[in-house]
């Protein structure tokens, strides 16, 4: 299977060849053979030695088309590549930058200190919609897409949690 890792241009071909003695697995990555020794398997993480170097992998999210990993503390997305994925990706790219979801949510918990955009007004992606305060810092919440402010869901002074809906942009 072909894999696209992170933003590396080059694709990597990978397959499991066989399990050897010694609790090791022989894999082919690119055109080279590698020995993987699995040391520990947890509920969502595992440790292994690849060519005599230790790695720790945590599976953050996993689907049929891609796996989001934390490799040695480094976030990396591995896409299982196929013609179909390519087609799907192109299709979604046509949807335009910032397309998709109308909900503007909070990425941090905090207190709403200032609402700068009014319902009914037009905003461009990146325009400041409101300002939150967290950890004694003021953080601007910016529009995630071009559109009109349909609704502001919070009031000044309110506390919001992570992922709370702040505004609707259509």
């Amino acid at each position, binding site marked *: 299977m072909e894999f696209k890792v992170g933003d590396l241009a080059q694709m990597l071909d990978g397959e499991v060849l066989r399990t050897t003695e010694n609790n090791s697995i022989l894999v082919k990555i690119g055109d080279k053979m590698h020995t993987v020794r*699995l040391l520990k398997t947890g509920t969502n993480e595992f440790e292994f030695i690849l060519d005599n170097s230790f790695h720790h992998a945590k599976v953050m999210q996993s689907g049929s088309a891609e796996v989001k990993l934390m490799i040695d503390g480094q976030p990396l997305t591995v896409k299982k590549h196929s013609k179909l994925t390519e087609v799907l990706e192109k299709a979604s790219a046509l949807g335009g930058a910032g397309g998709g979801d109308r909900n503007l949510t909070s990425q941090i918990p905090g207190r709403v200190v200032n609402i700068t955009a009014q319902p009914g007004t037009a905003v461009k992606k990146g325009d400041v919609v409101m300002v939150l305060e967290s*950890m004694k810092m003021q953080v601007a919440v910016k529009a995630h897409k071009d559109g009109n402010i349909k609704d502001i869901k919070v009031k000044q002074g309110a506390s919001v949690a992570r992922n709370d809906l702040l505004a609707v942009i259509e």
Partner: protein
Amino acid sequence: MAKKISSILIANRGEIALRVIRACKETGIRSIAVYSDEDVRAVHVKRADEAYHIGAAAPSQSYLNMTKIMETAKAAGADAIHPGYGFLSENENFSELCEKNNIIFIGPSSKTMQITGDKMKCKAVMKKAKVPTVPGSDSVIDDVEKAADIAHEAGYPVMLKSAFGGGGRGIRLCKDEKQLRQEFEMASAESRAAFGKAALFVEKYLQRIRHIEFQLLRDTHGNGRHLFERECSIQRRHQKLIEMSPSPVVDQKTRERIGEIAVRAADAVDYHNAGTAEFLRDPEGNFYFIEINSRLQVEHPVTELVTGQDLVKLQIAVAQGEEIPFKQEDLKMNGCAIECRINAEDPFYDFAPSVGPVPYCNLPYGPGVRVETYLYPGCTVSGYYDSLTAKLLTWGRNFEEARVRMRNALDEFVIEGINTTIPLYKTIMDEPNFIKGELSTDYLDRFKIFDKMNEDVKNQANSKAKAAVAAALLHSELVRKGAAPQSAVQKSRWKSRVTM
């Protein structure tokens, strides 16, 4: 004043509360912690001899609530209060409240704080004491002609600052007299509209400056000492990120000369306890006093590592009326120390606060490594308080040894669940200008450090590509065999990087 302190209430939280608790344990003093609703499981609650609940999560309801803290101190029978840094530490009213209630405030007197807390008043006192300050107006100016005179004397470019501004707001740069006159009109109009008076001042604009400060200690018998300098030039939006001692540009002669000036500054305000004299240094090597920080500073361990002194224990000694146990000439600078402030902020996303549970963390250790932190596996980083989660320090015989130790310690430091400034520091530790000691307060912009950080992270990720493919293959195999779950987990870095 010669009362032996046997119990201290620590009016603070986080790593500094733990720092003071450790000093209490070493000196046999009963440590009394206070905590808000948000901090019931905080490490300072667990480690103190006693812990009292003082209110809701919001600082105004707890760590800034003077009345409640004073009540608690009395109920617990505290002899003294250590304010840490931030919160009430530089509040002259709180210092006064302690004085009135006959509880020792571990810091300067309210009288001193009235001066150090007012920049212009302090500047006037310093000028009198022949402490060099930044050239410019001694007090606020309402008249453009006077502003022009002062600017001429100080030399252009100058800055026009509003007395009501702060944190970089309301500062206007003027290259020549013409511009000064224009800007003065606009600034005074704005200021008059907002506050009823112009209240501007003029200050020489210093370029490519370094922030260098001297650690002070002064007892109630009038003995003043400095514990050498710390260079704190690496800053982002006036917030220090990395501190070190010695400064790469301070030699022994300069150290003695400016140190003496710093002690003179402390004398001028009859300073008691530990404090810091902050200076700006221009590329020509001139030092300009800017202010006294009338508290223990975040970066005090830098000085502890190069002097061997324990500043918190010295604070306690001085607060109970003891004389400083060493002479200036007894102090020797030993090696080099660096501190990185590990903030819960995402350096890849404009330093957005990053809060929440920390399911796992690994603190670095080993030769020359010191950590001050409130983190532990299973703790929570709160959005109610500031973002400093840990201070990572390394000591070495020289800068190079301290630097490589820091680089390795940063690699060993694992904090799961939140984003931190660790990746930024990894890039800086390897950056040629940092290694050369080519520092200034605009270091991050001047050398495009954020670009370098992004590049470094990308390269690191790429270097893990094979391991990632191997992991993906293993994961597929394990899923196929039913040995691993399909998905997982709480908060990943991706989620927190989605555009807001």
